[in-house]
């Protein structure tokens, strides 16, 4: 499996470690009411879709950047890869 790194081009998935669903970028605010339940959902529950999945990969054996990879879990086809920092900045705007 080759991951199209936005800065480095196609890189072997073996250079990366896998964390999971990209929703892990959206950490709940611990100061809001109901934060405890929100954190339980955040830590433990996953959509786990059969199909398109946005997920976090860490380029551990490379430039040590975090990527948000969009991949089809039925075919392993990779549709896109973005820097997680860009995704986070885009969401904040």
């Amino acid at each position, binding site marked *: *499996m080759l991951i199209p790194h936005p800065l480095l081009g196609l890189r072997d*998935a*073996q250079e990366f470690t*896998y*964390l*999971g*669903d990209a929703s892990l970028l959206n950490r709940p605010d611990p100061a809001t009411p109901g934060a405890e*339940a929100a954190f*339980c*959902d955040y*830590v*433990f*529950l*996953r*959509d*786990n*879709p*059969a*199909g398109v*999945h946005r*997920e976090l990969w860490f380029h551990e054996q490379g430039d040590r950047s975090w990527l948000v990879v969009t*991949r089809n*879990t*039925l*075919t*392993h086809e990779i549709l896109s890869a973005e820097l997680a920092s860009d995704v986070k900045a885009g969401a904040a705007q």
Partner: protein
Amino acid sequence: MTFSGFKVIKEALTGYKGWGPLWRNPVPKPSYDIVIIGGGGHGLATAYYLAKRYGQANVAVLEKGWIGSGNAGRNTTIIRSNYLLPGNQPFYELSMKLWETLEQDTNFNSMVSQRGIINLIHSDGQRDAYRRRGNSMMISGAGARLLGRDELRQMVPFLNFDNARFPIKGGLMQERAGTARHDGVVWGYARGADRRGVDIIQNCEVTGFRIENGAVQGVETTRGFIGAGKVGVSVAGSSGRVMGYAGRRLPIESHALQAFVSEGLKPVIPGVITFGAGHFYVSQSDKGGLVFGGDIDGYNSYAQRGGLPVIEDVLEGGMALMPMIGRARLLRAWGGLVDMSMDGSPIIDRTDIAGLYFNGAWNYGGFKATPAAGLTFAHLLATDTPHETATAFRFDRFNRGYVIDEKGVGAQPNLH
């Protein structure tokens, strides 16, 4: 039709004309008391125990393909009860006891073979950890034996004891562990359930639930609506997909786990050997093939196949442990889907939807659990209360902080 030695001889002498199908292929009824989704080992065992022990015969098992075509037909057939934690070990020991009487119970040859399992030890720290695990196993009645290096070398002389990185210092053995014939288990439970009136409906995929006022009314399928008083979901690997039809998220990711078999060889490996440090375990089937596997591929997948890097990793582990494996040819490699849960342990519980029950999150260890999962899930479906041996496997253990994390790696499914 009951199997016996006499019957086999009689059929041999009369042209095998007396053998019939082992189960019917019924048309689904409009409704059942209990519908079980998933005709794998777990679903069929649940139906079998519902009918046999709990007097519930108005039961249907719905299977999208043919029975046993999912993980029940893709595992490496190992049965064992060598866990550490109190929530897990008594459950797997219950399963082991059921394996020991399975063939008499179902009157079907499931080829249960208690040839033993050995977990290899490479360091003093690991010996301490395995000694502790062995004590936990003995408390549950499973039995355990710590093997020294010399004793182990007599049993399995072909291992590379002097590997530079992982020299073998001993092993933890469970003598009652072993293997079973995976298809035989499925067929035995299917036949036993069918004979007691359970409808096994194949080629019937569930496509949704009908839920009214927070209570399940039945399931939508490719063969129409089927009403149900209670629905049991037993589809590990696809749990996320099926429970998604009910709008529920789970503490589970689906991952691909690969397995391998070599060409048939003369008997060479006495039992099951696990080389955890090298991500490799192996046994030998009755047909002679070396059956082995290693780690999951490590990223979410519903593809029922894995990638080459893990194949390479497993084969490297095999070569490091027992260099003679390099002389055997690899016959087949395949993949299955496993529910990897947030603490590496299973869930058998009610859901917040009345009448909807869940059995899943078996990680890479569902096969050995088949009898106990079937029995305890049947108990839950029939009585609405958890079986006394499966009280720890609840959904809310995550919220309450009572996770059952054998490896202690936290909520990271691909590390369990």
